């Protein structure tokens, strides 16, 4: 016990005596979160659009005004004729064109259908679909306000209510995902370097020729980084709540408990890497690249697990980030309790135990 205490103290000294690395360990997750949450966002803003108004009616003008006032759209100008419209697309002036046919806005005759033509640059299909949806919503909204939607809309109207995230903000899904990725990377990298550094500096040679047991070395190395990681979790939560505006609807204690289990799992993976890697560079690459790709691609951060091909879906079961991200979305965004995420909790705990035992067993007792 005294040995463990003294070892932990030594590890703390290493961290504190290297303020630059400590600063990196705290800033790196924040910067990553901030940059990625904006970069990965699938929301679209400021879509440049042009209008070809052949109707020149009060209605068409009112609709254009409405679009111009919307933050999603950005008014480029009016075009005359299909030639100019095509030219605007060709020159890249706009990503969307709205065409009001002659007669739009007049009293519709019975049986007539009001038509607005929308042209969308579909070179990015997702973006195109989103743009078209926004515009449709705007037009429907306008017609409804004018009392004209009743007639074409007579029949069945489906009204969709978006639960948990009514504005469909992508940050709600991405921020928990990023937390899972960033925490894994930072924890695994920190610990893997901590052990390998001793190998590189040659201090491991002296450490081994002592009554120290591998489990003491591994546990003592991990504990200071648990604290650093908890600081990271706090920073990340504050950042995502205050700056990015993602709510924390569930129980904060449950959220922190989950983070703690996940931290332990990530640290134990880092330990495993460090028992195998011989140099700090190898450890960095193994932890950075080897863990980042699965954490991004197989965790549900970018692609939903449900829509993965069968083999990849099976593979995603061994990616710890997958379970953490699932649970985080449930707790943070949906506000669910432990009864909804106990399975993820058990799986992560199991992974943590597994990696810890393996890294103690694989710890090289010789040179």
């Amino acid at each position: 016990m005294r040995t463990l205490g003294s070892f932990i103290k030594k590890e703390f000294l290493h961290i504190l005596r290297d303020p630059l690395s400590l600063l990196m360990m705290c800033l790196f997750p924040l910067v990553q979160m901030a940059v990625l949450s904006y970069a990965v966002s699938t929301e679209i803003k400021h879509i440049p659009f042009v209008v070809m108004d052949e109707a020149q009616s009060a209605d068409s003008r009112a609709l254009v005004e409405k679009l111009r006032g919307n933050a999603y759209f950005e008014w480029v100008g009016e075009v005359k004729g299909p030639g100019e419209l095509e030219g605007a697309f060709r020159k890249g002036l706009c990503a969307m064109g709205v065409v009001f046919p002659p007669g739009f806005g007049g009293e519709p005759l019975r049986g007539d259908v009001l038509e607005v033509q929308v042209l969308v640059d579909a070179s990015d299909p997702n973006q195109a679909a989103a743009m078209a949806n926004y515009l449709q919503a705007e037009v429907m909204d306008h017609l409804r306000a004018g009392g004209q939607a009743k007639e074409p809309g007579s029949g069945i109207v489906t009204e969709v209510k978006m639960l948990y995230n009514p504005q469909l903000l992508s940050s709600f899904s991405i921020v928990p995902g990023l937390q899972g990725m960033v925490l894994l990377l930072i924890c695994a990298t920190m610990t893997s370097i901590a052990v390998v550094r001793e190998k590189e500096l040659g201090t491991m040679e002296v450490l081994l020729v002592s009554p120290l047991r591998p489990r003491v070395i591994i546990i003592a190395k991990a504990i200071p980084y648990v604290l650093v990681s908890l600081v990271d979790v706090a920073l990340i939560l504050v950042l995502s709540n205050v700056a990015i505006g993602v709510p924390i609807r569930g129980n904060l204690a449950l959220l922190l408990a989950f983070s703690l289990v996940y931290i332990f799992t990530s640290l134990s993976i880092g330990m495993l890497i460090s028992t195998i890697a011989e140099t700090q560079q190898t450890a960095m690459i193994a932890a950075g690249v080897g863990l980042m790709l699965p954490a991004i691609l197989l965790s549900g951060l970018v692609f939903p697990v449900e829509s993965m091909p069968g083999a990849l879906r099976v593979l995603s079961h061994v990616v710890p980030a997958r379970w953490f991200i699932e649970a985080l979305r449930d707790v943070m965004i949906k506000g669910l309790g432990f009864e909804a995420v106990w399975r993820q909790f058990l799986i992560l705990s199991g992974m943590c135990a597994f990696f810890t035992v393996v890294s103690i067993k694989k710890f090289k007792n010789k040179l």
Partner: protein
Amino acid sequence: MQTAIFIQDLSKSYGKEKHRATALKNVSLEIGQGELFGLIGPDGAGKTSLFRILATLLTPSSGKATVEGFDVVKDYREIRRRVGYMPGRFSLYCDLSVEENLEFFATVSGATVRENYDLIADIYRQIEPFKKRRAGKLSGGMKQKLALCCALVRRPAVLLLDEPTTGVDAVSRREFWDILKNLKDEGMCIFVSTPYMDEASLCDRIALIQGGEVLSTNTPANLVASYPFTLYKTRAENNYLLLEQLRTQSNVRFCYISGESLRVVFHEGAERVIRYPSSEAEEVTPSIEDCFIQLMKKR
């Protein structure tokens, strides 16, 4: 005298079949308690491999070795409890202070600085003025003293020192050997390696090692006494020209440059003259280095 280290037919090779490199070939040694034993040999002779095997950091390819009666393979944990090991490369924490390093190595070996202070007192007093300084900022000699303190603080029965004086200035080297002499008097077995032949005479017994093989094991005095030739020393303005000349002389058995002079051995019964302006042969007692060179030639 009780045996502290026992090595029998020990071999060690690295790598797979095609690129096999042999570091040790059938090494046998027996070192007693309270003995200061030196392993003398040039770089690459296999010294570090032997130390690492004794420190249980490497497993031998064949042969047997025990430390304090414990087998280096089977009972490695017992050995790790009982030896103090100082690797050839400085292996303390550069970002920890002198005090913190000592404290740490005491605790991890289940000891305290206080209870074993008597053992390190003489050495530690020399570095105590700098105890708040980070180990990385110490001079070479100070570093070695601190490393020795850290190896000693657990009160080991056997001290393994792999080239402790390499890269250390002459004064610090002298001091270091004085310290070892004192420790030996405490009854500790000290096994030390060095590439410096002049340090050999400071040991109780020495083993000369070259190419993974032990050439000879003896006391320094006996080794010198067993030198089979009468050795002469000579020098000239230009030692290289003199060497060239000597090599053409039929009465010279062999000759070589040693420091600032030349060593010459004449054929038995041959005339002991040097045909070079203003150079004369003067009889000298062979040094350990001369013995080493002669043993290497014999191989």
